[in-house]
Structure formats: structure tokens, C-alpha cells
């Protein structure tokens, strides 16, 4: 009972409150920075940032969204992976790194959280070895972890972690940059990550690492096609590639913040929101599968193959290996944020968004922005959890299965989805037909999942004879 209450308290009070505080601080400090820079600030080495009309609020987004939210969440996921995998497998998981004052007899394990510090210290202080064979390309060997980590981290720059709100007279966005090319930046930079993995395999000068790097390169390049194609449907539906425009504004009723069929009940708007998962369930599935392949995690962890085949960072040790590992978790967080922004309605709750934006959002814009950032962060956290559960549920694909899935299934399905979306948007630019098609797809999936195949009459299909052959086949055999 005490455990259940504690967990519920953490999930529904402590974590949301932390996210809310983070969002509030991000908007507040962003507003202060905006004010400071627009007044004509002066910086020692970065004077050009203080040119007339400059806006330094992106520094706040960089610190709070990328350095704090993404990095801390990725770091916590390293322990969460082990702890949550333990729960799915009926184990306790790591709990032996304990903290507490010396006089306290039984130190607290805090759900394994001190393992974060223990792991970080271990990674940093471990001997950083390099095989003599890798002397051939010391620079590339050193560069590979950086190239694996940096592009993933840079992806998050265009993701809005909250709406753009008025903070003491300044429009403060919750994203580092809002370029016109939006999602295209994601595709461009994500494809750079393959250099890190293949360089790691090549510069190690080891056959196993090289094979791992080749597997990584082939898998990531194959799935980038499906990754991009699955998002085109959303771009077509909302005629934009900018992520904030995809999410839209509840007050203006644009993007995913609008309702397809909605009504106002007692001042609270309810209805079917135009979220990407409603409009593009097929696109969501394709993107989710392709993003798993991009993160190189199970069931697509054939580049790494930690349990038996050996992966591309075989020769790395210490913090260089740690960089590869943390980049994997950063990728999980960033792709969760991307899916949240594109398919899960961003910071919208789904009920009462318009009322909230027009009432609370007008009277207390910073608190409203913090609330939206909290909703966004919670969705990201939920998706991270889901990705970890998927990783501990599905077995690894074989190499030929990966290629078949990428080229023969995801790519044609993506093309079909794009064609269908284009046709339906042409027929009905208000997206209602597209939503109907999406609901139909969801209903089909639910129906298939909740039903089961009828038992064949007579001989049960599951029964086999002593040779493991089905009964019919066995009789034919005899």
C-alpha cells in the first residue's frame, strides 16, 4: 500500500511538478534574457549576439530543454532501462548503490537512482584504452563518439518543448531555433549520426567492429527513407514543415490544436482533436518503427547486438563507450519529443485546450506556458517508457528481416500512406475525411488485436504429432 501510494505520488505529483518548475524557469529566464539582449547587452566574446534587435531567449531553451531536460532524462534512462527491464522480467533490478548518512543503518536505494552517479563515476574514471591497431586513425577513433553524439543532441534544437508565450512583454519561444526548414533539419542531421557509428567501426581497425559499423550504416540508411516518407503525410495535411506550426495554437485553432468535431460543453471544449495519431495512424506506426531502427535499439539492435554478435563500439572503453551509450538514450528522448510534437498533439491535453489557452493563457501566460511544457514533457516521458518496454518485449530482427521490413514493407506502406493522405486532403482540405480514414485504420487495428483466429473445426490447429508436424501434414507424411 505504501509503495503504491509512493509510486502514484511520484508519477502524478513529483514528476509533473518538476517539469512544471522547469518550464516556468525556462520561460522566466528566457524573458529576462530577451529583455537584456533587446536592451543592447554586452558580452565579452560573443558580442555579435548582442546586435540590435537580438533575442537571446534561445539560450534559456538551450539550457533548460536540451542540457537539463534531454540530458538528465537520458541519463536517468540508463538506470531506468535496467530497473524497468527488471520489472518486466519479475526482478528487482539495481538497488545496491545506496546513499544515506553514516549513522543511518539501512541506507535508502531510492529506486536505483544513486546508480546514475555510480555509473557516471565509473565511466569517467575507467581507463580509456585504445587498441594498438587503432593507432592508424587516432583522430577518427577519437572523433567517432563525438560524431555519434553531437547530431542526436542537435536534433532537439528545432523541437518546441512548449508554446511561445508573452513574458513581460516579450514573445518567448520554448525552442532553440525555429527555422523554416523545421523537420528537414531533423532528417538532415539525423543522417549524420550514421557517420559516428560507421567511423567507430572503421577506425577501431577490428573486424568485429567493422562488421558492426557496416550493419549500422546499412540499417540506418535504409530506415531513413521510411523515416522521412512517414512524415510527409503530416506535412501534406498541415502544409508546413515547421514543428510549432504542426502543433499549432489552441487560441487560433490551427495545426493539431484544432478540433475536427468539437463542441463546447459548459465552457470546456471537447471533441476529436486533430492529432497526428488520429489523422495518420499508419504514418505514426511507420515513423515509430523507423525511429526504433534509427536509435539502434531492440528489436533493431543488430548493429550493437550486445548479447551475442558484437557491435561497432567493441573497442571503446571508459567515457568514449559511455558517449555511445548516452547518445542512444538521448536519441530515445529526442525521438520521443519528435513523436510527441508531430503525432501526439504536442503540449495539448486533448480536452479544454481552447478554453485553457483563452482563459488561463491570457491571464497568466507564463504559468500557462509552464503547464504546456509539463504536458509535453509528460508525453515525452510516457513515450520513453514505451520505447523501453518495447525494447524488453520484442526479440531482435534478423538482418534480412530488417532489410525486408525497411524496403519491402515500410517503404511501400509509406508511399501508400502518402498517396492516400494526398488524395484525401485534396478532396477535403478540412481534414475530416483524412480523420475518418485514420479512425478506420485504428478501428481495424483494434478489431484485429481484440479478436483471435477461429479454431479450425475438427482437429485443433495447435496439436502436433510426436514428430512436431501438424496432424494433417503428419497423416499425409505417413
Amino acid at each position, binding site marked *: 500500500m505504501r509503495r503504491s501510494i509512493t509510486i502514484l505520488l511520484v508519477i502524478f505529483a513529483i514528476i509533473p511538478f518538476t517539469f512544471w518548475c522547469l518550464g516556468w524557469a525556462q520561460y522566466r529566464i528566457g524573458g529576462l534574457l530577451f529583455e537584456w539582449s533587446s536592451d543592447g547587452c554586452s558580452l565579452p566574446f560573443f558580442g555579435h549576439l548582442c546586435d540590435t534587435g537580438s533575442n537571446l531567449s534561445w539560450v534559456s531553451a538551450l539550457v533548460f530543454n536540451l542540457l537539463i531536460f534531454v540530458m538528465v532524462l537520458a541519463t536517468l534512462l540508463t538506470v531506468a532501462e535496467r530497473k524497468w527491464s527488471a520489472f518486466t522480467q519479475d526482478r528487482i533490478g539495481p538497488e545496491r548503490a545506496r546513499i544515506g548518512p553514516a549513522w543511518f543503518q539501512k541506507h535508502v536505494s531510492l529506486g536505483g537512482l544513486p546508480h546514475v552517479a555510480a555509473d557516471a563515476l565509473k565511466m569517467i574514471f575507467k581507463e580509456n584504452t585504445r587498441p594498438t591497431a587503432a593507432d592508424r586513425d587516432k583522430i577518427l577513433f577519437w572523433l567517432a563518439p563525438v560524431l555519434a553524439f553531437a547530431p542526436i543532441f542537435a536534433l532537439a534544437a528545432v523541437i518546441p518543448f512548449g508554446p511561445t508565450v508573452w513574458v513581460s512583454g516579450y514573445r518567448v519561444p520554448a525552442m532553440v531555433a525555429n527555422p523554416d526548414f523545421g523537420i528537414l533539419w531533423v532528417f538532415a542531421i539525423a543522417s549524420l549520426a550514421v557517420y559516428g557509428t560507421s567511423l567507430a567501426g572503421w577506425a577501431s581497425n577490428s573486424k568485429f567492429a567493422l562488421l558492426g559499423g557496416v550493419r549500422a550504416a546499412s540499417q540506418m540508411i535504409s530506415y531513413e527513407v521510411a523515416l522521412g516518407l512517414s512524415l510527409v503525410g503530416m506535412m501534406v495535411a498541415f502544409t508546413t514543415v515547421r514543428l510549432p506550426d504542426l502543433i499549432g495554437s489552441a487560441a487560433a485553432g490551427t495545426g493539431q490544436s484544432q478540433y475536427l468535431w468539437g463542441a463546447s460543453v459548459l465552457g470546456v471544449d471537447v471533441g476529436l482533436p486533430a492529432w497526428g495519431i488520429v489523422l495518420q495512424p499508419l504514418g505514426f506506426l511507420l515513423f515509430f518503427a523507423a525511429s526504433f531502427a534509427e536509435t539502434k535499439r531492440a528489436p533493431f539492435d543488430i548493429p550493437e547486438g550486445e548479447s551475442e554478435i558484437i557491435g561497432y563500439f567493441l573497442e571503446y572503453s571508459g567515457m568514449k563507450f559511455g558517449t555511445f551509450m548516452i547518445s542512444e538514450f538521448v536519441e530515445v528522448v529526442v525521438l520521443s519529443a519528435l513523436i510527441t510534437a508531430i503525432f501526439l498533439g504536442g503540449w495539448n491535453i486533448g480536452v479544454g485546450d481552447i478554453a485553457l489557452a483563452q482563459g488561463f493563457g491570457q491571464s497568466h501566460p507564463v504559468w500557462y506556458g509552464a503547464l504546456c511544457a509539463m504536458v509535453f514533457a509528460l508525453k515525452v516521458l510516457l513515450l520513453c517508457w514505451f520505447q523501453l*518496454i518495447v525494447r524488453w518485449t520484442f526479440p531482435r530482427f534478423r538482418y534480412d528481416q530488417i532489410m525486408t521490413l525497411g524496403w519491402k514493407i515500410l517503404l511501400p506502406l509509406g508511399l501508400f500512406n502518402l498517396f492516400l493522405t494526398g488524395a484525401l486532403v485534396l478532396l477535403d482540405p478540412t481534414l475530416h475525411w483524412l480523420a475518418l480514414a485514420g479512425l478506420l485504420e485504428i478501428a481495424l487495428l483494434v478489431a484485429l488485436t481484440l479478436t483471435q483466429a*477461429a479454431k479450425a473445426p475438427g482437429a485443433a490447429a495447435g496439436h502436433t504429432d510426436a514428430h512436431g508436424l501438424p496432424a494433417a501434414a503428419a497423416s499425409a507424411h505417413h
Partner: protein
Amino acid sequence: MAYYKATKDPTTDIRERTYVPELLHGLAVTMRHFMRNLFFPRDANVDVLNRKGTSQITTVSYPEEKQVYPEGYRGLHRLVPRDDGKPRCVACYLCATICPAQCIHIEAGEYETQDASGESRVIEKFPTSFVIDELRCIVCGLCVDACPKDAIRMDTGLHTPSEYTRSGFVWDIPRLLEGPPVSHPSDPWMRRPASEAPAHQHLEKHARIGDGLVQLKLPQSAPAHPVRTEVTSGPVPVTKFLRD
């Protein structure tokens, strides 16, 4: 549950073909385990099969919770002390010889012939060091079988505890010697003439051997110096100790 017509061949079943419904079924299984184990406290009953509650965790959190060993479990060995606190061991090397893991190392000492306690008249040797390397020991119990003096027993019920260093697993006499003192009527030191116990007590204690039918050979007049005969005819010079 709704049903629809399907052939027996799973490759033509649309669920198997589309793959996603089966994936969702699998996810439901792992999520169910996750939720049960996350939200509900673990039953710490060390009898794992009889654990109750919603949580399905089967871990026994070892140092705090220990599995109950079966009744026949005997555990690590120990050296048995005498009444005077010294080990019963007479350094005969039988245990070290039979040990298949060669984990017992004994160094024998000789009793001073002028020893006032008079033990030298009945016991020749004692272990100056008796060391067992617990990392090599396979707990087979052959040493216990080999020991003629009931000096080593396996009845502690413990298994090797953890140590931080390998040297911590090398146990010597102070570490091995534990338990209540044990003496048997047939112990040589019980028969020494200098014993303050009257002779009839010895007789009583030996009654089980044959109810006095066996005439006890009580050393009456042991020489102060045992005769020492040097035998040099063998392949190796051997010093032989002879008594009386």
C-alpha cells in the same frame, strides 16, 4: 471475443501477416508484469514459490534474505576444540592427504618431551598451523571422514562468507576453531597417568568398549626420554620415533 474465419496456416492469418496485433499482445504481457511489479510491494518470503501478493518478483535479496537450506545441509568445516581450548588435531596429515582440492595445509609441531603437562607422553604432534583455503575447498567432506581424531567436522550450517580480498579466504586455526569443546573417553590425553581423575572413572568411561572386559593399557611407567632409533636403510633417511 469475436471470431472470424481463418485457415489453420498462420501465414495466411491477417494478424500474423500484419504483425502489429501480435506485437500489441506481447506488449500487453510485459506491461502487465511491469505494472504489477512497479505498483505493488514485493513479498519478501524466502520461500519463493509460496509468495503471495500482486507483485510477481521472485528475487531473494540475498544478504538480507537468505534461502532456507535443506535439512541435510551441513555447511562449512570447523576445527573441534579440546577441553583446554586447543584443537583436537594431532597433525596426522590424513585430511590434507585425502583432500581432492588440496586446500588444507598443515605444519606440525612436536611436543616438548619435557613438557610439564605430560601430553608428550601420549601425543606426539600438534598443528602449529592448520590452514584451509576456502576458495579451493569444494566442501566434499572427505577430510571429516578421514580424520581419526574427530578433529574436523562439518556441522556449522554456514557457507563461505564474502570477503574483499583473496587472503581473507585463507583461514587459520583461530578462525577455524569454534564450537563447544569435545572429548571422547578414548582420547589419549584422557588416559595419561598424570591425570587427576581417578582410574575407575577411566574404566567407567570405557565401559562401552566392553564393560570392563577389555583390560585398559594404562601407561604405568613411561620413560622420560623416548628411545629414538635412526633408520637409514630406506631410500630416504627416515627418523622413526619409538615409544616405551
